[in-house]
């Protein structure tokens, strides 16, 4: 809200500098967003002068040499001037040596092209009063010679653009801000003097307003209407226009301007009707009828409905209550008789209607935030005073007041010690009392307590609905005392330390792992476009993860995976010519499962082709590289992937390439992993070049929270092992793990209790010459060991033979000799 300093000074003495006032406003709890200076600044040595003679400059075509009379300020001066818009006899502002014009422009006696000049004649821009730099400011009112220019120019003002917090609707007014500043500077607040007191004498002109009915008192608890007859509508006086202009309002006419002025003064919106345009001379405060229409002051036709409150005459709505008046019932040049409405409308009602119609005004803004109904009449009388003074006319009866202010009585009892306990430091009782009084929080009772210091009963004025509890007064005391005076202290931290949340621990661990493996950690947006989900995730995900009210089209869905964001990152870097290979990210993803969504923790990484040119080439990443990393990530979640069934991805779904990617886990068990080559077509369609390997591990946060079982130590033998190699020929499609498991089972059975199969691992995979079509050879290394002795060939050989015999017998596999 824009607040004028000149205006504030009507109510409170403010000798402080603009900076000090800004500081006061700031520490009172309002933000000063901007300080705007208007009108002329203080200018010394700038006076009114008259051009007596204008001669062409002997050495310059565009300059003139003038004789200028500044009267008592120094007589006739010779001044060189470049302007063209003046004539001999014009009176103009003259800056004499010693003047400092805006922009720190110092005026000195000088020589211009060999001609001495005793000063400068000024344009409006040079004086800092307007933007007009086209020529000299001609003072058409012909003020006396030598008059200081500030006495001639409109006075300057300082306008503060202040952001008022939503709890302080009382400060959406000059009186409200003045009250706060009065409290800060410990000055008296002077209210406007009011002459009108509601008494209209004996004149009653019921022909102007016959009746006021309020049909919806729940939305309009108070409605007042006063009638003023015989006004003359015309321009407002200059001071009023200047004030409105300063705070950003356009002057219209004296009646409208006074309404706005009093609204900005008291924070109470009001509306003036042309009494003769009220059909039936009646006012009805009612709900609009569905489909009813009104053309508002801004010239737009608005369709209303039955939840909206309107002010109507006998036939039609004339105002949308608390928001905006109708075009044809307002005050015009022809208006002579007025009805002045000052009312209270419920904030919920105004807010709903304003939002529904997408129509806001200074009035609706105030009603939505809360207007104090107890100042309604005061504001009405103030407006009537100003109307009578500046537009003439007479207040005539009858006046109407329908409904009434909800009775206001609020007291808070607070003790000195309570306030100090909440603050953590001592403020003297006298300072607290000063703070209360300064804010017009009247102390109605002061009582000593045995152990809590003085107890005050504080009366809360009606405009401070935000003060309701003792804690609210703590803030008031601190505001006026000054938050800058909170004393320093050392942090007290009695031991409470717990564990960090498991999701955070997991994210740290996997990120550290990946960064340690040369990945760059990325952060991508959570919201993704619908088409991407439909194309590369699933139709159900696209349906279930949609936002109700997306802001932009390409951010309409919750992300079901981190991989797509990482592809964005790859594309961006590629398009900028920055080689990017290894990227990773942790964050929340949203997984659709059985018709409901799960919010999951996730970690993902991509490995793109290394496009950087290097003096020595390293082997490229492949499926088994990402398998290695995904296994490490699973360990951080307490999951051993080697004990989990791994399923090759069949069919190109979820963006993974068939035959080159795999999955493990299920959301039914709280986690899932996917890894391998990303679908080539997807990667291409998303604008990323080259093959991209990726992995993602997703887990429910609550699953991470489950405590891990403590591992138990198992004894191991210190004696030498016995090794055997075995190559098995199987169908090319048979998974190696299936063969390994079969072999391990048979080996354990064959060794029995004599010794153990310590390890069995595939060390060679071969397909091609020497093997039948469609077959492959898997070579395994078996490690046998006994706990108590060195194994001999005599012991191991028969067992190894039995394993081979059992394998051939139990499966269709062949032993490769």
């Amino acid at each position, binding site marked *: 809200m824009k607040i004028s300093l000149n205006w504030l000074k009507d109510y409170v003495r403010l000798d402080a500098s603009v900076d000090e006032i800004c500081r006061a406003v700031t520490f009172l709890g309002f933000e000063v967003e901007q300080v705007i200076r208007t009108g002329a600044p203080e200018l010394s040595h700038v006076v009114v002068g008259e051009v007596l003679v204008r001669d062409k400059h002997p050495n310059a075509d565009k300059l003139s040499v003038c004789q200028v009379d500044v009267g008592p300020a120094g007589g006739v001066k010779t001044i060189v001037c470049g302007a063209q818009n003046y004539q001999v006899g014009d009176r103009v502002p003259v800056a004499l040596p010693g003047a400092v014009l805006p922009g720190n422009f110092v005026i000195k006696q000088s020589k211009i092209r060999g001609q001495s000049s005793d000063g400068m004649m000024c344009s409006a821009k040079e004086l800092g009063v307007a933007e007009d730099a086209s020529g000299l400011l001609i003072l058409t009112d012909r003020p006396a010679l030598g008059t200081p220019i500030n006495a001639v120019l409109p006075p300057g003002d300082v306008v503060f653009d202040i952001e008022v917090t939503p709890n302080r609707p009382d400060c959406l007014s000059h009186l409200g801000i003045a009250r706060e500043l009065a409290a800060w500077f410990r000055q008296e607040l002077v209210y406007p003097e009011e002459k009108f007191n509601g008494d209209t004498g004996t004149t009653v002109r019921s022909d102007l307003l016959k009746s006021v009915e309020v049909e919806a008192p729940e939305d309009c608890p108070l409605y007042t209407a006063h009638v003023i007859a015989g006004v003359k509508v015309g321009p407002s006086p200059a001071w009023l226009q200047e004030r409105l202009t300063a705070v950003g309002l356009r002057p219209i006419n004296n009646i409208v301007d006074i309404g706005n002025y009093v609204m900005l003064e008291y924070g109470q919106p009001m509306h003036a009707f042309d009494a003769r345009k009220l059909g039936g001379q009646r006012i009805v405060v009612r709900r609009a009828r569905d489909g009813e229409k009104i053309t508002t002051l801004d010239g737009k036709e608005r369709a209303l409905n039955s939840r909206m409150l309107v002010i109507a005459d006998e036939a039609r709505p004339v105002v949308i209550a608390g928001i905006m008046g109708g075009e044809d019932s307002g005050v015009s040049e022809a208006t002579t008789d007025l009805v002045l409405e000052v009312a209270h409308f419920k904030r919920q009602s105004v807010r709903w209607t304003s939002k529904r119609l997408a129509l806001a005004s200074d009035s609706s803004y105030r009603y939505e935030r809360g207007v104090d109904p107890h100042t309604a009449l005061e504001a009405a009388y103030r407006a009537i005073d100003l109307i009578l003074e500046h537009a003439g006319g007479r207040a005539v009866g009858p006046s109407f007041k329908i409904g009434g202010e909800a009775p206001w009585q609020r007291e808070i009892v607070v003790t000195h010690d309570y306030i100090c306990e909440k603050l*953590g430091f001592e403020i003297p009782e006298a300072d607290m009392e000063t703070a209360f009084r300064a804010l017009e929080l009247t102390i109605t009772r002061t009582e000593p307590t045995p152990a809590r210091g003085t107890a005050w009963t504080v009366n809360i004025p009606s405009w401070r609905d935000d003060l309701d509890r003792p804690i609210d007064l703590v803030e008031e005391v*601190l505001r006026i005392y000054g938050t800058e005076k909170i004393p320093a202290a050392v942090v007290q931290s009695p031991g409470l330390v717990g564990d960090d949340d498991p999701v955070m621990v997991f994210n740290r661990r996997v990120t550290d792992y990946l960064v340690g493996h040369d990945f760059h950690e990325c*952060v991508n947006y959570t919201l993704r476009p619908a088409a991407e989900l439909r194309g590369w995730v699933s139709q159900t995900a696209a349906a*279930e993860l949609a936002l109700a009210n997306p802001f932009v089209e390409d951010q309409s869905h919750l992300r079901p995976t981190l991989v797509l964001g990482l592809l964005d990152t790859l594309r*961006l870097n590629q398009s900028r010519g920055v080689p990017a290979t290894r990227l*990773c990210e942790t964050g929340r993803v949203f997984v659709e499962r059985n018709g409901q969504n799960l919010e999951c923790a996730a970690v993902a990484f991509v490995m793109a082709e290394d496009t950087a040119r290097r003096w020595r080439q390293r082997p490229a990443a492949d499926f088994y590289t990402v398998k290695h990393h995904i296994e490490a990530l699973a360990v951080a979640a307490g999951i051993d992937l080697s004990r989990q069934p791994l399923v090759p991805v069949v069919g190109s779904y979820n963006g993974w390439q068939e035959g080159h990617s795999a999955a493990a886990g299920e959301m039914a068990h709280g986690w899932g992993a996917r890894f391998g080559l990303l679908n080539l077509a997807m990667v291409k369609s998303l604008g990323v070049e080259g093959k991209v390997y990726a992995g993602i591990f997703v887990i429910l*946060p609550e699953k991470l929270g489950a405590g891990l079982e403590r591992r138990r130590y198992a004894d191991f033998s210190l004696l030498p092992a016995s090794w055997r190699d075995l190559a098995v020929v199987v169908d090319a499609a048979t998974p190696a793990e299936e063969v390994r498991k079969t072999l391990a089972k048979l080996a354990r059975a064959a060794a029995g209790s004599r010794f153990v199969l310590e390890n069995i691992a595939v060390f060679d995979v071969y397909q091609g010459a020497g093997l039948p079509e469609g077959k492959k050879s898997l070579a395994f290394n078996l490690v046998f060991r006994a706990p108590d002795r060195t194994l001999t060939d005599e012991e191991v050989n028969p067992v190894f033979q039995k394993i081979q015999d059992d394998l051939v017998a139990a499966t269709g596999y062949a032993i490769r000799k």
Partner: protein
Amino acid sequence: MQDLLTALVAKAAAEFTSLQSRPAFEAAKARYVGPNGEFTGLMKQMAGVPKEQRPVIGRLINETKGQIQTLLDTALARIEAAEMQAQLGPAIDPTLPSPDPGPGTHHPLTLVREEMCRILRKVGFTVADGPEVETEFYCFDALNTPADHPARDTQDTFYLPESARFGNVSKKDPGERYLLRTHTSSVQIRTMLKGPPPIRIVSPGRVYRRDTTDATHSANFHQLECLYVDKNVTVRDLKALLDYIFESLLGKATKTRFRPHYFSYTEPSFEVDLSAQHLPKVKKEWIEIGGCGMVDPTVFASVGYDPEVWTGYAFGMGLERLAMLLYGIDDIRYFYQNDLRFLKQFA
């Protein structure tokens, strides 16, 4: 005999110095000291030496054996040294870059978050977390946000459709809507509902505002909030925490100030300004860095804590904003573009 032995040593010395490989060495060794070697042959002749000459000849043979062994050791050492040298290949150029990619980098938001968490952990705060999909109760109602507050507008807050169901985000009331949390304060509510005070948590996390993306706004960004609930917590304690945080983060020259403000969930409430003109690109004397206040009794009541007994403070700030300040970054979008030239600057 002596001549024979002397000649053998001379011959061995000549032969061994020219040995170039291990097989040649083994063959040469066999020729002298192997079962059929020349020296072995001479030793065998000892049997025919008269008894009285034996001590002399024996000493000679022992000396010769020692000399040959020394020659063999020397030759072997030379060959082994040559073998090791052969493993090495040409000398490296230490100035060539490593052809491996890397090193990896942590994102600047992670670095700032972790630094804050470390600072806070020293004074007893541990990390709490909560869902990003929230409900109206946890995000607004429990935080004393009135039902008609503009922050709850569909203008400003992302909502999920009425039909949306989240299996692992609990609702307080079955009728309430799911939304994307607008602040991490919802974590405070969930933490307080989970257990009794005292509580001292920091909750960093992602939040959402329905806002135009530009240099300073983003559809999602990150916040970090502190909550402390205990008996007799005061405004002065809160100020002490803020002073501690920013002195730890930015050095002793850093100052903070409180400006009274309004938040529905704290009373009194303050905005926190920071004076740290030693930071890059900081021109203003005071920079707004976050909001804080004493937990409003209404919030305690809504989580079942007795407001007469418990007191507390809360502080929240934007992580992007802090990172921008710390590093002198002037566009929030850089955090989400992940240009490697950007990411590599903070490792």
